[in-house]
């Protein structure tokens, strides 16, 4: 395994199903050590297919990827041993207890019992399931199952953890709790995390860098802040008492990039809205203008997403695929 800081290197990775459906189309990207890298896109964009290739469950049609220096196609056993996977589905065996499930995972990694028992207890503690360790999984709620999946994915102390839609179908509270675990993993264990999601706020809150994927292609990669900046920054809307053109005054203020007048309101783009707004008020007061109204909007990833995919995330989320997968998760949770 290389000492390189590029933990995941993807080169021209492609998957074509049945010689006709191109799910992933020649994608390239690199994930650095210790990074939380998010794969964002609507359902059917190729997120899960990409993650399945990276975790060596699906064979690429073309191209390859290197994880910790190991080729996913040629050194798949080494790659499997070094990574952890938290799949989209609830994969724990319902007929077994939480403890039995974790120990089964440990056995699959070849971890001897005296090590795995201790480790399983640590992990159950981490995901706050210690009290339920001897309960059968079919009595668990969706959130508990997700936490158990997380514990199973960590049993081999992976250097890279793959999370496929880690919060799909979870309520807001459980989702926030899951985010906390993910942040803890990064902070305490210096783990590299690769996650797919179609929740924009999740990508924004968690990821150091995001790739937006649409129709099997990566349309943009960058940190959430940089992506938002690429849209032109924050937007300040203000109006003043006197009907006099103040465009020139505003233009001279620091950080202001663009000023437009629309229906008597001034729409200002700035790279740093919080700092710019008071400066503008100050400058206008100096020239005898009184600001009557001011609002500040920060661009969200939703706008970034719209910009690059031409669709709003809401449309994508309500696609039949999303509804179906949601229903699958629910059905399992109820069964």
């Amino acid at each position, binding site marked *: 395994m290389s000492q390189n800081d590029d933990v995941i290197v993807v080169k021209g990775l492609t998957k074509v199903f049945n010689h006709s459906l191109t799910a992933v189309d020649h994608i390239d990207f690199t994930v650095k050590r210790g990074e939380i890298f998010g794969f964002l896109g609507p359902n059917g964009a190729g997120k899960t297919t990409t993650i*399945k290739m990276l*975790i*060596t*469950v*699906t*064979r690429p049609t073309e191209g390859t990827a290197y994880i910790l220096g190991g080729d996913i196609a040629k050194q798949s*056993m*080494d790659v*499997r*041993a070094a*990574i952890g*996977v938290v*799949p*989209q*589905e*609830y*994969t724990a*065996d319902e*007929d*077994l207890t939480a403890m*039995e499930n974790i120990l*089964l*995972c440990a*056995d*699959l*990694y*070849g*971890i*001897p019992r005296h*090590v795995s028992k201790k*480790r399983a207890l*640590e992990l159950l503690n981490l995901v706050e399931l210690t009290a339920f360790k001897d309960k059968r999984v079919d009595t668990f709620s969706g959130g508990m199952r997700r936490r158990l999946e997380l514990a*199973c994915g960590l049993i*081999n*102390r992976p250097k890279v953890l793959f999370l496929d839609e880690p919060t799909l179908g979870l309520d807001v509270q459980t989702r926030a709790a899951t985010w906390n675990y993910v942040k803890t993993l990064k902070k305490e*264990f210096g783990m590299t995390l690769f996650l797919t999601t179609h929740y924009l706020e999740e990508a924004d809150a968690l990821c150091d860098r995001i790739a937006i994927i649409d129709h099997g292609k990566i349309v943009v990669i960058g940190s959430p802040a940089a992506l938002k900046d690429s849209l032109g920054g924050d937007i300040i809307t203000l109006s003043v008492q006197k009907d006099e053109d103040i465009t020139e005054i505003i233009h001279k203020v620091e950080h202001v990039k663009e000023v437009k007048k629309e229906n008597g309101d001034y729409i200002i783009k700035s790279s740093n809205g919080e700092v710019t707004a008071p400066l503008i008020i100050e400058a206008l007061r100096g020239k005898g203008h009184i600001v009557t109204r001011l609002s500040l909007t920060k661009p969200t990833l939703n706008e970034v997403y719209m910009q690059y995919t031409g669709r709003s995330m809401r449309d994508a989320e309500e696609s039949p695929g999303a509804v179906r997968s949601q229903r699958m998760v629910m059905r*399992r949770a109820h069964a």
Partner: protein
Amino acid sequence: MSKDAETEVSRSKLHGLWALTNRELKKWYQQPFVFVMGIVQPILWLALLGKAMNLSAMIPSGIPGLSQDAIMMQTFGTTDYFSFMAMGMVAFTTVFTTAFVGMSVVWDKRLGFMNKVLSTPVSRSVIILSKVFAASIRAMFQAAIVAIIAFLLGLQLGTNFSAWSILGIFAIVFLISVGLSSMFTTLTLRATRMEMPQATFQLITLPLMFASSAYFPIDKMPQWLQVIASVNPISYTIDAVRRLMIFSDGFGQLPLDFAFVGGFAVIVTAICVVLSWRYLNK
């Protein structure tokens, strides 16, 4: 967390085999209902069907020069049809038990368990072999139950029977179970829907059962059916079980029985393992 872990990990070609096999078995023995039904079912088969088909009663008695026992002996190799059929059931119960392996493969795929296991460093053949072994262990247990019930219902042991016979029966039942469960697994390797293993099971079970000597001796069947029955590994299993338990005229083709069933097991398992490398990763 410390870094001690990596040095302690022991990965071999077969690691995870027992863990996965044990998982399958737990689903069976930890479910009292499934477990008990597995015992009740053969009781019903044997007590109702086995005792109802009282074939010796059909042969008129009291006709000079015609001995009921001699006719039964000549046809079935034993004077008691119940014993004949019960030993057929001992062998045939492996078909019913191993057929569920296909369901379990599809089930694991649908629930995502298969994907998780595929992402761990377990060899693909181990994933499949664990299914095969778990089904075979279940089948051996089930066959033993059938044999015990048959004994309680009045099985007439032949002079061939000895303590070694019990070992022999476990061996032949293990071989046929490995072969059958590999066959059922192979047929469902690519399936993602439950209908597939169910349809396969129904399609395969009937010819396996009736084109075998489970209920009727092969040499009294029509010629074309004899051809099918003579390549049916179940026939050889049944023959071995009967020779070990209820026949009295020596072991005859017992080595052939073992060779045929063993060969079947080895070949089908090999095919299954090779195809699992190919089809488990999509």
